[in-house]
């Protein structure tokens, strides 16, 4: 279906643009530097986050293609690999160190730099002021700093790929002693120092951003925009920021202790270690590697929701708009986001069931973990009831939002398996875990991100993305995601461990050789299609079909009351006042009623 058909709904909104030309149009001069580089406009900062995140996504995705090549074709050599990786792939075969470095960097890059920085950095920045009716963030300067700390962290992380001993290779969770001892592996030397530096910069960026998001949502809402009139995107991004602000500092303190173990000779995480490489016993005593795991997963679990909540919020909004129906159970949606936020802080030890955790404590964490299924199920049923009997418009954004719901269901169900400490004894560190978290937070968060990009691209750049390419992108990615990760469940149930270089030497995993080949092939196809998306994105910025009305999707929210290409300050005149919630679709015989329209005398209550 083309977007043309949607334009009929937009007359209502254009009335807002009429009465303000006389006011200020923004007086201070903008140079190239202040407009595109050191911009303090939240919309430009959002685009900077998005494009930096996209660069990282391509790099992180490419890493996964490289190590999938090894996993799918362990007996073959690829001479071109030596051309691009040099001595890391001597004879066209990825070395063991490089394999671990690739796996580690793939995880770090995608979890932090793409799905945290790139996702909530982009959409929190872009949507918060526009949807609550604010000129900009509470502190535009801090917001700019947030991006530049992110950029600095990115540069440091990127530079670690090019040093002689290679990037950190001890897994994205950076467990000591691999992360604490330079002698443990080549990647644990300078690569790890750069990793910690980059992550520290990243944490600072997240905190600066998060502080801003929270204080903007709570303090800068326009007149009439009570908390319960906010679109669900705002609630989701708000709680995402709360999670980040409360959990990232704990990770930072964990990193500070790690840094002292590396360079200060302290024993926070190290105890009774003999290194075979240097034939030396270390003086460290009394340290505990489990302590790092506690500090890490106290962030690490909320991090999962930092990644997922923005996708949930955007999917709610996009599904409601394109189903032309109010979101089902608005307050239940808000309540479930809140419940997820609270529970996110109380379940971290489920990552540590097999570390020798007290079984009684383990059972408490099992209970709390399984409780998350309740708010998650509330959200899923509300999405399904929202599209129930709806006259759905299958725009690319809607397709990806529906894809998100599908992936969230299938990935979430396997979480119930893993949340049981008894089952986890068998499933821990197998491909079942890989399959679970890639579907539930990796691919599904990506789908939320794609949905957001396709949906808000007209607001970002004043043009549409190409629909044909978008639909190809959607179907290949959805089918590909299931084809890649579904078989991994079987491998995991059969006990196939993660992070091994070569499975062909194991009798028990030999029969998966063809399956691994299949997975690797699909992974390459899916990666290629993502490049098509990137092409579509940049092509459409310059050549896409122009947006001709302010409200192309017929949405109720405030961002569509701004001009097609809003300047710094968003609204040329007064900020509009809000009179109703964000989900008056198909009400009283009208297709939609914008939030800015006062409640009529004969209007029914929602």
């Amino acid at each position, binding site marked *: 279906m083309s977007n043309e058909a949607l334009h009929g709904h937009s007359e209502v909104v254009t009335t807002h643009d009429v009465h303000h030309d006389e006011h200020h149009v923004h007086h201070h001069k903008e140079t190239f530097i202040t407009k595109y580089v050191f911009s303090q406009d939240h919309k430009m900062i959002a685009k900077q986050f998005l494009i930096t995140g996209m660069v990282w996504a391509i790099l992180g995705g490419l890493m996964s293609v490289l190590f999938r090549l090894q996993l799918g074709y362990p007996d073959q050599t690829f001479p071109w690999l030596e051309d691009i990786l040099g001595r890391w792939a001597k004879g066209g075969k990825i070395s063991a160190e490089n394999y671990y470095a690739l796996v580690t960097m793939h995880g770090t890059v995608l979890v932090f730099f793409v799905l945290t920085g790139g996702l909530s950095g982009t959409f929190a920045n872009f949507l918060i002021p526009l949807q609550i009716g604010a000129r900009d963030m509470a502190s535009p300067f801090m917001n700019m700093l947030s991006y530049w700390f992110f950029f600095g962290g990115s540069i440091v992380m990127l530079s670690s790929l090019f040093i002689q001993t290679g990037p950190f290779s001890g897994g994205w969770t950076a467990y000591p002693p691999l992360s604490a001892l330079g002698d443990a592996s080549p990647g644990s030397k300078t690569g790890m120092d750069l990793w910690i530096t980059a992550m520290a910069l990243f944490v600072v960026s997240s905190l600066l951003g998060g502080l801003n998001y929270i204080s903007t949502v709570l303090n800068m809402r326009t007149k009439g925009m009570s908390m319960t009139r906010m679109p669900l995107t705002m609630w989701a991004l708000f709680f995402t920021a709360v999670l980040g602000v409360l959990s990232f500092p704990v990770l930072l303190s964990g990193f500070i202790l790690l840094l002292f173990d590396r360079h200060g000779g302290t024993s926070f995480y190290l105890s009774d270690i003999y290194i075979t490489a240097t034939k030396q016993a270390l003086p460290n005593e009394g340290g505990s590697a489990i302590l790092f795991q506690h*500090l890490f997963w106290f962030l690490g679990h909320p991090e999962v929701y930092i990644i997922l909540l923005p996708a949930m919020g955007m999917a709610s909004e996009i599904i409601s708009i394109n189903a032309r129906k109010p979101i089902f159970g608005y307050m239940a949606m808000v309540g479930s986001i809140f419940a997820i936020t609270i529970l996110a802080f109380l379940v971290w030890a489920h990552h540590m069931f097999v570390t020798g955790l007290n079984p009684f404590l383990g059972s408490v964490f099992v209970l709390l973990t399984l409780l998350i299924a309740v708010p998650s199920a509330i959200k899923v049923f509300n999405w399904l009831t929202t599209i129930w009997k709806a006259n759905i418009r299958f725009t690319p954004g809607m397709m990806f939002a529906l894809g998100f719901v599908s992936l969230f269901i299938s990935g979430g169900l396997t979480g119930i398996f893993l949340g049981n400490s008894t089952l986890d004894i068998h499933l821990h560190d197998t491909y079942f875990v890989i399959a679970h978290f890639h579907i539930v937070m990796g691919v599904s968060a990506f789908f939320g991100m794609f949905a957001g990009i396709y949906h808000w691209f007209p607001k970002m750049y004043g043009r549409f993305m190409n629909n044909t390419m978008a639909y190809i992108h959607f179907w290949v990615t959805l089918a590909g995601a299931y084809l890649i990760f579904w078989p991994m469940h079987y491998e995991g149930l059969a006990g196939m461990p993660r992070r091994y270089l070569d499975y062909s030497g194991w009798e028990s995993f030999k029969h998966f050789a063809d399956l691994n080949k299949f997975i690797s092939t699909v992974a390459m196809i899916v990666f290629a299609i993502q490049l098509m998306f990137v092409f579509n994105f940049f092509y459409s910025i310059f050549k896409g079909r122009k947006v001709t009305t302010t409200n192309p999707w017929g949405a109720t929210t405030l961002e569509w009351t701004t001009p097609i290409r809003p300047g710094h300050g968003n609204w040329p005149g007064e900020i509009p006042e809000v009179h109703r919630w964000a989900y008056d679709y198909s009400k009283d015989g009208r297709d939609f009623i914008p939030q800015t329209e006062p409640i009529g005398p004969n209007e029914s209550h929602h």
Partner: protein
Amino acid sequence: MNIVSSRQQKIHPHKFTLWIAIGSIIMMFAGLTSAYIVKGEQPGWTSVVVPKLFYYSTGVMLLSSLTIQMALKSFKERGMQQYRTLLTVTAVLGLLFIAMQIIGFYQLFNSGVKLEGGSGAGQFLYIIFGLHALHVLGGAIALLIMFFKAFSAKIRNYNSVPVEVIATYWHFVDLLWIYLFVFFLWKV
């Protein structure tokens, strides 16, 4: 266009942002002190004697909290001369506090509490007190910026928000210090 003051606010966004930042800093020190509690119960733990000097630095910190509050009061009453003096006194007390912390570290170090080697309270003390001193240093730098702003003749500033923000932050690092100090006295 003044983006911030576009609407009547109940609480200024900058002040509110500070409160969230304080929550964030609390989480960081909560992480460190709970790590301390967890580790303290494990075998091989060694404790330390907290130097007497830290009692005096506590006094300095409390005194500086008093002076920053008086500075805020005189700013609001437009007693600019007094405001500048009190600001200077607070910054000096802050730097004095940091200097005393460093001397305290030397005393500890000379009494044989080293960073290297087996785990113990000393390693945590250096890092936790050190991180706190860094937060005080950040506040002192902000005070110095305020100090130079107060002497610039061109700008007449009647906006008390920056002064209130820095005063709140200063009281926070003061309270944080008291928490950390009592924590160490109690747990060691």
